[in-house]
């Protein structure tokens, strides 16, 4: 044994620990905090107080008083917030225990915050409380946005404030808003082209922005200087701060009324009651393991296939969610999602759809274990870019929802409807540039909020209803939006024909949008979605998944000139514009839905569609009258009615020929039987040892989640790899533009070799 390897004596160890503590270079995200999604055990004080008789009704009153205060603050932020997110409900307010357990959040807003907001509070408690240069004092407030320290994504910003009672921290309060612009590589705070963690924009660990009630103007100036919208940064900082103050006032009033002990017991009992109920509800689900695999078709820079496997195991009141086998993280792509963010997505599925009536708090997750491969896109390292981490989080939601209806279908006691998966992508435009009011803005359109709802076991899904992550979120009023930004929707949220997940009950449909900028010296659009080739949303029990639709552009003409001078050339629907290409001289193109900020000339058209929720059940069981109603409403074509739903009808009157329809459906049932094959035969032909050659594939293959398939890029080009995640080298892909240039250079070289002129 060398000297360096000799164990330290106890005395030496103390000295070494002291030295190392003093030599901490950087207080990065603390794995001890970040990997623990459960509530802390009882404190000695809580233990003592809970050993005494409890008045359940008195505790309940405290809860309701706190939630009333949180709702008040929520409403205040919604009214005064300047960020588009604040206007459409992407915000929340919360109360935590002194130790940082999230106990209550506002009735409205984003549920998933319930599973992520405790991390930064615990960080503050652990590192800043005893740090002489920081400390925690009455009147202080901390700001934070970095998802690596606990957040859904870096575009959300929070204000976290301690509540002191008789000189001690008795609770924490927080307010969070999806702010949008955060100084990232692209305007709007969710850059799809982020190639490193440093492209993600502001990376605020929790730090003090109000010192004993006074705003640190120097730090505010630093933040304003780091973003494209200094006005927004300033204005919403105050909005969040004053809303948090309001909660603090309410909490203190409750403590004054009921006393410290009742307040403390109320918080702890709330956590324990919710945990007990969550465990009871898990125990209602039949034991077993339930599996689903989903895929994403894009990194937002290029098309490929990323696997998202999920296995949920129920054993008594415990639930284990296994995401091992997921695609690896990409160190120069934006879709990676921190473990905390991924858990948010999963939690949203449970709280919004499975247990919508259950109070939200950290302890709802106490009965859940999550298994991941560290280094995967659902549990990446701290240096992975997170610009569009919602990709992973939304997949975590989709996996949970896809399984839950199957898990609970036979349960006698249900808390939410049996429903096919909701649409789960971010099909909207981000924007950035100078407005007609000469202000620079960068943010996201509220069109994000019109996601198609899944079909239920008893009814069709709702068209473009609400995003799965925020009940009552608003798609807004176009007239009001156009007053603030220099672009128009020429097709404004019109339900897209045939954009339907078919089924006995069809999914709720998504709308189409066509945007064009006008009256601005500088403007650009971006998109941050996947699913233009592989459906992101599956169906349920035989229902179809959502259709795939591309991002489309019409360039080379000014559409406003066309509308004024040759209006007959302009058509108000995506289908006609792309199929008939009615504007002479225009360039029509389609793309996957990850578009880094692209400058828009006046009158360039950018189009995309919101997606559909999944369908439920067999299309052959759909009531023909409902099919005709969808034709009459313009929601589906006659072709769909005939070829998908096997309806026979008069196209003029939409009168259904019932007999012929029954015959057509019977014939299709027989044809299905003829096409069908015994399962072992199917497996023998279908299952392969490895992914298809031509598809860049990432994640496990088949049932073996221990080995990950990937295509890495080295100096010599792409290399196929198969290895456990822990042995997977960093995955980085070349810039698609570089590849395009390489391709063109090769073409030039080939042409030169044939003697053709080089500028051919």
């Amino acid at each position, binding site marked *: 044994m060398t000297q360096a390897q000799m164990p330290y004596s106890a005395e030496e160890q103390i000295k070494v620990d002291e030295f190392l503590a003093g030599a901490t270079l950087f207080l990065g995200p603390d794995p001890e905090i970040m990997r623990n999604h459960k509530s802390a055990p009882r404190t000695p004080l809580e233990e003592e107080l809970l050993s005494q008789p409890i008045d*359940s*009704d008195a505790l309940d*009153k405290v809860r*309701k008083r706190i939630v*009333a205060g949180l709702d*008040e603050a929520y409403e*205040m932020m*919604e*009214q*005064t*917030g300047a960020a588009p997110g604040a206007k459409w409900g992407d915000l929340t307010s919360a109360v935590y225990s002194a130790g940082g357990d999230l106990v209550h959040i506002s*009735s*409205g807003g984003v549920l998933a915050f319930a599973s992520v907001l405790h991390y930064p509070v615990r960080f503050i408690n652990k590192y800043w409380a005893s740090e002489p240069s920081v400390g925690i004092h009455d009147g202080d407030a901390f700001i934070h946005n970095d998802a690596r320290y606990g957040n859904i994504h870096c575009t959300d910003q929070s204000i976290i404030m301690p509540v002191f009672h008789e000189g001690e921290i008795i609770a924490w309060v927080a307010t969070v808003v999806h702010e949008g612009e955060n100084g990232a590589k692209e305007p709007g705070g969710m850059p799809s082209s982020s190639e490193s963690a440093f492209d993600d924009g502001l990376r605020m660990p929790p730090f003090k922005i109000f010192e004993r009630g006074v705003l640190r103007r120097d730090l505010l100036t630093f933040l304003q200087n780091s973003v494209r919208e200094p*006005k*927004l940064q*300033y204005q919403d900082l*105050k*909005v969040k701060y*004053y809303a948090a103050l*309001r909660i603090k006032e309410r909490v203190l009033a409750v403590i004054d009324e009921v006393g410290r002990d009742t307040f403390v017991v109320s918080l702890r009992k709330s956590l324990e*009651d*919710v945990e007990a109920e969550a465990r009871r509800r898990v125990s209602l689900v039949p034991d077993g393991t339930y599996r689903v695999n989903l895929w994403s078709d894009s990194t937002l820079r290029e098309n490929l296939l990323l696997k998202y496997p999920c296995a949920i195991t129920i054993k008594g009141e415990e639930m284990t969610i296994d995401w091992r086998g997921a695609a690896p993280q990409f160190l120069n792509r934006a879709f990676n999602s921190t473990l905390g963010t991924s858990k948010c997505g999963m939690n949203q599925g449970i709280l*919004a759809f*499975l247990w*919508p009536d259950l109070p939200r708090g950290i302890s709802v997750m106490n009965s859940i274990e999550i298994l991941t491969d560290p280094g995967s896109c659902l549990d990446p390292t701290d240096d992975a870019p997170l610009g569009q981490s919602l990709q992973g989080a939304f997949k975590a939601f989709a996996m949970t929802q896809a399984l839950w209806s199957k898990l609970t279908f036979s349960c006698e006691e249900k808390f939410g*409807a049996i429903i096919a998966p909701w649409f789960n992508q971010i099909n909207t435009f981000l924007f950035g540039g100078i407005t007609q*009011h000469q202000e620079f*803005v960068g943010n996201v359109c509220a069109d994000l*909020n019109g996601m198609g709802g899944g079909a*239920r076991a008893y*009814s069709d899904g*709702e068209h473009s*209803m*609400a995003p799965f992550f925020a*009940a*009552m*979120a*608003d*798609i807004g*009023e176009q*007239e*009001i939006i*156009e*007053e603030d930004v220099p672009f*128009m*929707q020429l097709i*404004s*949220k*019109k*339900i897209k024909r045939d954009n339907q997940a078919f089924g006995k009950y069809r999914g709720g449909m998504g709308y189409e949008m*066509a945007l064009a900028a*006008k009256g601005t010296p500088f403007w650009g659009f971006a998109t941050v979605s996947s699913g233009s080739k592989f459906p992101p949303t599956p169906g349920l029990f035989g229902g179809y998944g959502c259709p795939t639709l591309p991002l489309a552009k019409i360039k080379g003409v000014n559409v*406003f000139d066309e*509308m*004024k001078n040759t*209006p007959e050339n302009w058509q*108000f629907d995506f289908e006609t514009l792309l199929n008939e290409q009615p504007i002479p001289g225009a360039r029509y193109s389609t793309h996957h839905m990850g578009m880094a900020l692209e400058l828009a000339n006046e009158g360039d058209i950018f189009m995309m569609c919101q997606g559909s929720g999944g369908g439920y059940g067999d299309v052959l069981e759909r009531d023909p009258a409902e099919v005709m109603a969808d034709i*009459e*409403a*313009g929601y589906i074509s006659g072709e769909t009615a005939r070829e998908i739903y096997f309806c026979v009808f008069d196209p003029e009157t939409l009168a259904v020929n019932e007999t012929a329809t029954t015959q057509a459906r019977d014939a299709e049932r027989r044809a299905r039987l003829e096409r069908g094959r015994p399962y072992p035969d199917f497996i023998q032909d279908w299952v392969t040892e490895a992914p298809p050659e031509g598809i860049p594939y990432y994640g496990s293959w088949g049932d073996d989640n221990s080995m990950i398939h990937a295509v890495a890029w080295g100096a010599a080009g792409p290399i196929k790899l198969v290895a456990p995640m822990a042995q997977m080298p960093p995955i980085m892909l070349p810039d698609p533009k570089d590849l395009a240039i390489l391709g063109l250079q090769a073409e030039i070289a080939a042409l030169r070799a044939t003697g053709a002129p080089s500028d051919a």
Partner: protein
Amino acid sequence: MRRISVDIGGTFTDCFVTWDEEFFQSKALTTHHNLSMGFNHALDQACQRIGKERREVLGGVDSVRYATTLGTNALIERSGPTVGVLVTAGFESTIALSRGRGYGEGMDALAKNDLSSGTRPEPLVPPRLIRSLRERVNYAGEILMDLSVDDVRRQLKALIDAGAEALLVSLTNATENPAHERLVQEIFLSEYPAHQLGAIPMLLSHQLSGRKGEYVRTTSTIIDAYLHATMYHALSDLEQNLRANGYAKPMLVNHNTGGMAQLNSTDALQTIHSGPVAGIAASEHLAGEVEIDKIIATDMGGTSFDIGLVTVGGGKHYDFMPVIDRWLVSIPMIRLVTLGAGGGSIASYNSLHDSVQVGPRSAGSDPGPACYDRGGLHPTVTDADLLLGYLDPSEYAGGQIPLNPARAEFAIEEVFGDHLEMDPIEVALLIKAEVDDQMANGMGKELRIRGYLPEEFTMLAYGGNGPLHCCGIADRLGITKVLAPPYSSVFSALGAGNTNQMHIHERTIAINLFSSATRQLFGDFDLFNGIVEDLESLGTADIVRQGMDPLKVEHRLELDMRYGNQLVTLAVVVDRNRLRSVSDTLAVADLFSQEYARRYGQGSQSPEAGIRISTVRVASFIVGKSIAFGTLAPASELSEPTRRTTRMCRFPGFSKALETSIFDQSALEPSQRVFGPAIVTAESTTYLVEPSWRIETGDRGAVWFFRNDNAGGVR
């Protein structure tokens, strides 16, 4: 003064008659097939008390005024005509999508949060009756694509062929440039002339609402079109009935803006909720009569608890995008918040927290609370009130509904017996405490979000359960003074008699009062003053059309303002109707700052981000004569009535039953004082004076509750 005011509700038609210095109230069942019958019946009762014939009374009054909930009922029953809609091409799905959140509008919090079950209501206009026109106007009113006349003709024909019985046009940005909407109307009238039989009405959205927002403006116009015929026929019949009975003046209709107008100046949409809004008008009138500047009006009935605010000098409290039934609309409506709790609210066991929960389900009036003995099995707030000793089983509702305490006890046992180790009385105490808490939380939130302190308010408690629960609710909010108002059983009718002729006109406009980009203060005073002048002219025209003197018209200017890019605006009542210099600009900025700070906290203002005006609103009105009640405040000399008996009652906070004095209605005669714990059983309600409270009575049945640490005195 001689005046008749009426509130036609879903069940009762309430009538309030002022005849010289005397006041008469009466009630009759609403006769939906012919509203005049119910009205005549109610009026006849009042006439009998006056001692005059109906014709003589109608011939002698200065006005007859109606508030009504008829429109609300018509909407719920879906009894309107087939409406066809024309929108701008590209916006065909705006109505169906209802801003994505239409599934939850008008629903409770749980329904809003449960996406798995959320479902939009059946549409008033299905997609097949929505057609689009090829045209486009931008946010500033510039026409980007001309309207095609041939296209208009085609789409009109398609809607008529589809069976439309009423049409409306709602084109994008029509508030900024209504030329295309007007052109559609012109083409329509040339194709389908109004003088021909079978002519159908066409409404233009910009005439209904001057505010931007294509969805809410369209919905407003749809509801107006949907209710137009129903309301027109019902109100016209009422007017003809009045004419036939000797009334020669114009009939007046209360609006949900808190104003009123003749039929020829009333949109159907303005009548929705005008009944409950008239209750707020009555509260406002009482506030003036007793010189109280901050009132929170509460109406606690069998199934719901309505809250409204009256703050003298601070302008009226409006909702600018209220929800009507399940629809978000764009009209300024007096704000009313409804909480789902009343006497019929069902109590249940909350297994999650091992506690008592009240609502949101209600037993309603049929079968009603378990103690009604009509088959109700669920324990309700009324059952708890009965077991606690507050209600006299034989005198409830004037003795019309005998109560059965055994049923109440059984229902509580059934629901709570297996879970709580308490006797039914103890559970009843928890139910009372819970419902009082819920109401207090709702009221507290409503006040605090507007920047008010509850303890500065006087609570007005009307409705059947108001005086029964007001002490418990007020206690929790630190409110020390409650008024159970006179004539509370016909309170909305009373309010209808005290509203002024008023019309509101507004216009969306983007004005940078201070631009953070250019750091310039607004200076285009001609533009601003021109808009205000136009709106004042519209309001004056409305009033003059009804035969009023234009010189008596007053205008109140309100500006919806915001900092930077905030979406939601704050309505600021401006103390000057014209801007003439930068001093005026700064004064308006200061008024906004003060109002913002009052509401959200001093220091929360952000003028650095820019100050914007988004809507200019003018309320034009004539101050009419109102009904003077005389002294409602308790006299300085009070006597203490003799109690009828005593009863042992339980109260929250007391471990044992307290001997409670029981009084009959005579205790409510003027100038009396009763200390709690006490109960006064009157014909229409029960007054519960909790320990630490007392009541003092004024004239005309005004009953004041004071907490004992309040020395008394109305102001």
